[in-house]
């Protein structure tokens, strides 16, 4: 009969209306600036550069291999290679990025840079409050702004970070073991194997 569904719908909304005053569990609203929803591990928004230890720039894992720059679909990453080299996370001498900029107004959060990075240097952040007052300089993030510690990475993506840490520890152990075996020749920096260009 016409009208029965209407009454059913009205009863449902009336139950919601009254219930929201009686039962606080019904109200799922998060009062945003004061309250935060728990961060979801699988969420991602915008890439950042991981650094080891305490030195923000020296500890960067990035060796400026330029793979992420090449693979980035919207071409939002701009890297300039350094002229000199310095030891990386595993102790090998490597290039480092002289400049590493990401245009966050272009980035589409596809995570391809993370997937292709062979050094676990770039990871996805969960920070979503990226609003700025300046639409030019504030939207182009440089490497100082992009650098975030490994501890932060462990905090936001614990499972992923544990796997990365284990992998890096293994690599370091391998390098240390190789050094221990071949102590006789002078410390020859292994050149060219990991950095093509």
């Amino acid at each position: 009969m016409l009208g029965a569904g209407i009454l059913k719908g009205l009863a449902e909304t009336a139950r919601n209306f009254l219930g929201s005053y009686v039962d606080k569990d019904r109200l799922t609203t998060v009062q945003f600036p004061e309250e935060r929803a728990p961060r979801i591990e699988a969420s991602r928004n915008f890439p950042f550069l991981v650094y080891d230890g305490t030195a923000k720039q020296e500890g960067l894992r990035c060796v400026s291999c330029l793979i992420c720059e090449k693979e980035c679909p919207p071409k939002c990453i701009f890297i300039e290679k350094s002229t000199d080299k310095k030891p990386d996370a595993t102790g090998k001498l490597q290039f480092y990025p002289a400049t590493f900029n990401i245009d966050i107004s272009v980035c589409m959060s596809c995570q391809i840079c993370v997937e292709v990075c062979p050094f676990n240097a770039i990871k996805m952040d969960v920070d979503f409050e990226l609003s700025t007052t300046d639409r030019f300089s504030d939207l182009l993030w440089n490497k100082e702004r992009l650098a975030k510690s490994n501890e932060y990475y462990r905090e936001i993506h614990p499972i992923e970070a544990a796997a990365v840490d284990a992998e890096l520890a293994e690599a370091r152990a391998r390098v240390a073991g190789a050094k221990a075996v071949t102590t006789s020749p002078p410390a020859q920096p292994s050149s060219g194997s990991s950095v093509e260009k």
Partner: protein
Amino acid sequence: MTPETIDQIFVISKHWLLGYMPTALQPIGSAILSVVPVLVVFPLLFAITTVLERKGLGRIQNRYGPNRVGPYGFWQPIADGIKSLTKEDVVPRTADQVVHFLAPLLLVLAAFLGYAVLPIGKNMVITNLNAGVLFFFAVGSMVELAVFMAGWSSRSKYSLLGAMRAVAQMISYEVPLVLAAIVIIMASGSLSTVAIVNMQATYTGIWPHWFLFTPWGFAGFILFMIAATAESNRAPFDLPEGESEIIAGYYIEYSGFKFALFFLGEYLGMFATSGLAITLFLGGWAAPFSFLTWIPSYIWFFLKLLTLIAVFIWVRGTFPRLRMDQLMGLAWKFMLPMTLLNIFTAGIWHFIPEGILRWLVCSLLIVAPWILLSRGLKQRKKLQVRTYRFAE
């Protein structure tokens, strides 16, 4: 002070104030003293309603609703007002400037004119016209003109088509709206709103003689309220503004306070038609029981008005928007036959002597066509279960 004095306090104070005026100025003074309260009270009610509506809709959807501005968010209308006042008033370069400017004003004016014949309390009506109900519907149809002025003068195809939709809807629902009200005119034998309320303000025992408590009155009230919802462009009949489909329809080219005026006009129209529904079916300012007559009449009027507004909000929070063909189908295939049958039923009621028989006959005359009509309308529909591949 006796309850009678409190009931008539506004009327007494008006006459007291008029006593200090020279005789030549008294007619205009009386008009101003009657009109200004309406111009103050109902826009204020609009402001209160907007925040209550948003909070009510929020609660219906298990949200808090506005809760930032002021205590419990009750200063939200002030913030909204400041916002719409400070917004830039953009007028399209090719728009008809004069008509574009006049349309929102005419809409608000048309909405206000209806209040002239609404008895807000005992002896509290601006003018007691002999053709009050007719006047109400006549000025109510000015809204269509204002809507079309807005849509046409904007020189935009979106707003023009939006206006056409809105006018088509409003005219379609104007027909059942008036036809639903005719049963009251038949029963009371008067077009004067004051006379209609006076007829209902009597009691048998404790029970009032509202027209709602008759089969044709009840059906008429339901049909009237459905038509009034469509007439005031409220959900589920808010197709003219359909923000997700046509984005604000006829007032798409309006910004700032002119846009707010459209909302004001819409709400004032809603209050006015609700007020008329109260006057026609719910006994106007009359108390619902004879032992409650000591409460002032205007309080009863506004209590009934607020109840109807709450129902409007409830309905808005419950139902999704109709499609245009569903809307027109409801108006012409369901509302129109039902209102015509209702007029017939009211006539039958008049000729059957008082008793259980006329209740039975008249109820049957309404319920049977309603069931048949709803079944007939449903059978033509091919209802099927839809499967969505991507949304589980």
